[in-house]
């Protein structure tokens, strides 16, 4: 690549980033709108819960990979964050499971 092509490529990348940010924000707003509509739909509870969990996971991923630049950063940043995320998520899962056992119900 010639030396003059590099800044032009950088400029294009910055321009496309700007457009990408706006597009992702619009997408997130639409998903949020769909989430609100979802809770009023006459479907089985497990379908609605699954839909909401998937929608919020999609929003979560868009924010961390696009807005937080993980897409362009070194993979180690992603690994580092996901260690915390998996530990946090694992703790949540474990606590919910433990407290769903009959002998471990919270004190009334």
């Amino acid at each position, binding site marked *: 690549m010639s030396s003059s092509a590099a*800044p032009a490529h*950088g*400029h294009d990348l*910055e321009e496309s*980033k*700007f457009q990408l*940010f*706006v597009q*992702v*924000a619009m997408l*997130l*707003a639409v998903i*949020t709108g769909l*989430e*609100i509509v*979802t*809770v*009023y739909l006459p479907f089985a*509870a497990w379908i*609605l*819960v699954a839909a*909401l*969990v998937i*929608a*919020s996971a999609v*929003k*979560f991923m868009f*924010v*961390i990979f*696009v*807005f*937080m*630049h993980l897409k*362009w*950063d*070194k993979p*180690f*940043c992603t690994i*580092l*964050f996901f*260690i*915390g*995320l998996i*530990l*946090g*998520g694992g*703790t*949540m899962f474990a*606590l*919910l499971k433990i*407290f*769903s056992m009959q002998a471990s*119900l*919270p*004190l*009334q």
Partner: protein
Amino acid sequence: MSSTAAAGTIDHHHDPSTSTGIPNKKLLMWLFLASDCMFFGCLISTHLIYRLHPPPGTPSAKSVFSIELTSFSTFILLMSSLMMALAVNAIQKGNLKSLRVSLLTTIFFGCIFLGCQVFEFNNFVFEKHLTITNSILGTTFFTLTGTHGTHVAVGVLWLILMYVRSFQPQDLDKRRGWFLVNLVHVLALVVAILLGMNLVLGTTRALEATGLSAATLAHFASGAILRILGLLVALAVLIRLGRPAGPVAFNEGNAMDVEMMGLYWHFVDIVWIVIFTAVYLLEYI
């Protein structure tokens, strides 16, 4: 602006001077955010456990929550994330004017979110009689959302400091006394935000109580004349101090500082994405 010439020459994602290739500040921030994931994970799971096994006498969350208000504040926080991403993009290109506009918009959206939360808490305590001590729902709900709100407030303060920092003069002679100007600038912003929020919340409460009429607004304005004057003075100071006054010591080289702040702000947004679903939406199913 000196930074414009250098725009596009700094690699913002890699740092060859560190053994990981990642700037140390960024590495530290990601570590902090990873630890904060565990912190919020515990708060959210505590709330969910007590929602799944509510003790007798727990009020129905559906009758307490307002989905309209929460949806609005969620939308506002998402848009603030967009403005924060644009602020980082702007400073990486050395565009100081765009950075300041984006930062001010992010501060504005952050304040709207906090205002909604203050309104919601006020409504829960005084209208729905849900306090942090009178039920387990109140305890877990206020602890979780209050902790998140504190994170947002810290983020707003950080944004204010970064905005004011972007005015630091490059000329060393002009820097004498800059600390005092800096302090006045920060105070003016904080005063404008607090008075603005106070006036908007006061007007909303007055309108809620007596309905929309010129007499209501006139009565409210006469009772809040000092606050309105204070807000106008703070805004005048902000406009005066916000005018460009020569070259500044804030350019593309400071992009990493803005990016760190951006990471924190987006994290607050992703935590709210989870809270919105787990705490609010699931109650309506």
